[in-house]
């Protein structure tokens, strides 16, 4: 008989999971929190950061729960003193080579390193040693890369390979000099990167940040509004980040179509919303020049002129272009107006273009 489910205990909670599930997945199901950096449910299991270590009866060392498969009768302690000590050490080692500039970091408030340091009471690194001093990479209009803040979790490497399918960045060098770079250690701008920003969406710390959003608002100041992208017909979902009645950025949500993936237009193409060229008042052309008008004047003139053409030349002397940019509701209303009020079926839009 094939065993399809196995039962184990985690922190004395009994949980049954499908065969093949990891201890981390079992813990999640049991409602037991285990901190992670490198783990991402959408990406291949990596087991690099060691933050998710647990104690398992009968196993000598502390295995990483994200890559340890749960077995029948396994007894797991996810918060034992040894586990806590190990996690603190992981954090201390990371902080020993991490700029502690949370005061000005755009990721502050949405950073796992910050969250776990708070959780485990780790203030600074207990280890003194060499620190990285990489220059900040901001030679593109989309993403700022601060490799001093990189914890080498490799999520960006896997997102680029497994979500975007481009494999632009990879681990290079060994030991302390290990770094994530495009081929030949050039900047993203000098590589074949398409700036989808899917690496930014999975970075758990401040190493990869949206260039404008990081300076536009603290993470806790923004209100996120889930909506649908205004560009191509794929229909990706994302969160508009709003502060003081202004859209200050776009971040991934878990969209039905796209998951967290977006393209450069969806993620970084929101600037038009508040562009100074936006039309903010009705305009009426007088002697070849546009003059500002009130809504009443403009609407009145439109109604009068359309009515005049209809009366003088008939309904079919009028035509309407609706918009593939606008909502269903607006397209419905405009064709209703065209047919019921103007009296013609001459309505179309750029479906063929």
């Amino acid at each position, binding site marked *: 008989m094939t065993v399809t489910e196995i039962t184990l205990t985690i922190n004395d909670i009994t949980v049954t999971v499908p065969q093949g599930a990891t201890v981390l997945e079992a813990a999640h199901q049991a409602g037991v929190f285990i901190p992670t950096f490198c783990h991402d449910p959408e990406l291949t299991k990596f087991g690099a950061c060691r933050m998710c270590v647990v104690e398992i009866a009968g196993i000598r060392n502390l295995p990483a729960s994200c890559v340890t498969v749960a077995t029948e009768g396994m007894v797991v302690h996810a918060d034992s003193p040894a586990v806590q000590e190990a996690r603190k050490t992981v954090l201390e080692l990371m902080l020993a080579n991490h700029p502690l500039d949370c005061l000005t970091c755009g990721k502050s408030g949405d950073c796992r390193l910050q969250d776990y340091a708070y959780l485990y009471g780790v203030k600074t690194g207990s280890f003194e040693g060499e620190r990285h001093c990489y220059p900040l990479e901001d030679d593109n*209009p989309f993403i700022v890369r601060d490799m001093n803040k990189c914890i080498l979790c490799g999520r960006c490497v896997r997102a680029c390979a497994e979500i*975007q*399918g481009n494999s632009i960045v990879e681990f290079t060098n060994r030991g302390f000099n290990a770094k994530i770079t495009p081929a030949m250690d050039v900047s993203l701008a000098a590589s074949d990167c398409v700036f*989808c920003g899917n690496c930014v969406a999975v970075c758990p710390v401040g190493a990869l940040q949206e*260039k404008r959003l990081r300076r536009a608002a603290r993470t806790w100041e923004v209100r996120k*509004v889930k*909506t*649908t992208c*205004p*560009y*191509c*017909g794929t*229909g990706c979902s994302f969160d508009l980040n709003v502060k003081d*009645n*202004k859209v200050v950025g776009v971040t991934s949500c878990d969209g039905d*179509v796209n998951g967290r993936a*977006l393209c450069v*237009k969806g993620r*970084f*193409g*929101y*600037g038009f919303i508040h*562009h100074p060229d936006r*039309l*903010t*008042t009705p305009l009426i*052309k007088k002697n070849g020049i*546009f003059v500002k008008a009130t*809504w009443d004047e403009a*609407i009145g003139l*439109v109604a009068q*002129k*359309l009515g005049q053409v*209809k009366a*003088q*030349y008939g309904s*079919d002397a009028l*035509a309407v*272009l*609706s*918009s*593939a*940019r*606008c*909502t*269903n*509701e607006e*397209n*419905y*209303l*405009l*064709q209703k107006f*065209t*047919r019921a009020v103007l009296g013609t*079926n001459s309505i*179309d*839009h*750029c479906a*063929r*273009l």
Partner: protein
Amino acid sequence: MTNSIAEIAGADFILAIGTNTTEAHPIISLKAKKAQRNGATLVVVDPRRTELAELANVHLQLKSGSDIALLNALAHVIIAEELWNNDFVAGRTEDFEAFKAIVAKYTPELAEQITGISAETIREVARGYARAQKATILYTMGITQHICGTHNVLAVANLAMLCGQIGKESSGVNPLRGQNNVQGSCDMGALPSVFTGYQAVTAYDQRAKFAKAWHVAELPARPGLTVGEMMDKAGTDELKGMYIMGENPVLSDPDSNHVVHALEKLDFLVVQDIFLTETAALADVVLPAASFAEKDGTFSNTERRVQRVRKAIDPVGNARPDWQIICAVSAAMGYPMQYATASDIFDEMALLTPTYAGISYARLEQGDIQWPCPNANHPGTTYLHKDKFLRGLGKFNPVEYIPPAEMPDAGYPLLLSTGRRYFHYHTGTMTQRTGALEVHYGTEYLEINQADAASLGIADGDMAQVSSRRGQVKIAARISKVVPQGLVFTSFHFPEVAINKLTNPAKDSLSKIPELKVCAVRVEKAS
């Protein structure tokens, strides 16, 4: 799309024809790339060696406009080698014999002469498509923007039916639509011949239903004009007034000079938009509209998925949501339209539209829904044509190859094709004003093959003058292996390179789509 986007990842054979997916539909391309990583065969049919073509297992670099010869030859091989799906053809289709008779003459050798693709490659691809468990076809404007665009699509449908590669998960015929709500605009009846849900204006019962719901005595029975016909009639004074909402035909339509001339001749033009576009500049009245971030509503994507658009901020300045502006104009013309919310409009529409009848804002809060969704308990439809086609039996419509309307000649020796770039969108109205995209990709260029550039004395980066029978533009040349000899390519995203001044307005007689993918041009080094 007959299938859903997610299903592409589950296909084991993808035939991508006339779609530059990685640039025009980046997120959909991720699914195709994922399928390929999982072992699927990716075949790309495109005159250009696009990024997707580079990734493909097989790139069929056909001559522009020769798609029907290729598609008919694929069917020819499948029939000749008896690889077709007998059960599907017998049980679910009709007119197979007529189709068989037509494709009989499209031997791979004949197709090789027309398309430039070797007969043996055509045979291999035909076998792969027919033998696949789940083959899917992706296409976009690369096959539709031709004078035979409708026939190209019919040829695709014929192939899918021949092999029974439709009506099942991950297998079907999938047009990838280019604009956020182009599917929804069609669904909503923003077309000259149909009300919402493709209910014909020529049908008395449909007109009676809408007239009753809208409280009017009658509705016009004669189909109206398509956008290209509108421009023609405006040019000849038959059209006197136009109302344009959120469209920029001056840059997006073929033969721009003609479009400008036509719009200028109108007695009255009102344009409603978020920017003073090239089209709005010609208007008598401009009405400032709210952007997608400033209003509630829904968009329907290319896989028929209805999704919410949510108001995040107030409209900028005195701008108003388009729906409120339409209501105000209508009221001023003596037909009050009163809706408290966008949801109320949706409800009225859903009552009149069988395919949307089961969808409401309340349901959309629980998750998106793909139409057809005929009632409130229906879960929506992930793929179409499962047990039968809409019309019952799937009809084979045999089609013949015809060459494009305007082919290169001595005066205009190169072929111009146009399309989209990854970093920009449509007429650039939005993407040229983001503070990011236009910073990174700020100028447009003309892709030209090394051999053509050399014979014209054009070096990489030189300014080139490109002329057709209808107009000319200046644009920087980029020597590129993406285009073969004889073909040049650029986008229509940049107002300063208004390439549609050159394009050919010759239309498909059925769908009225212009042949934007082929026109004859002359390229010279600009002085």
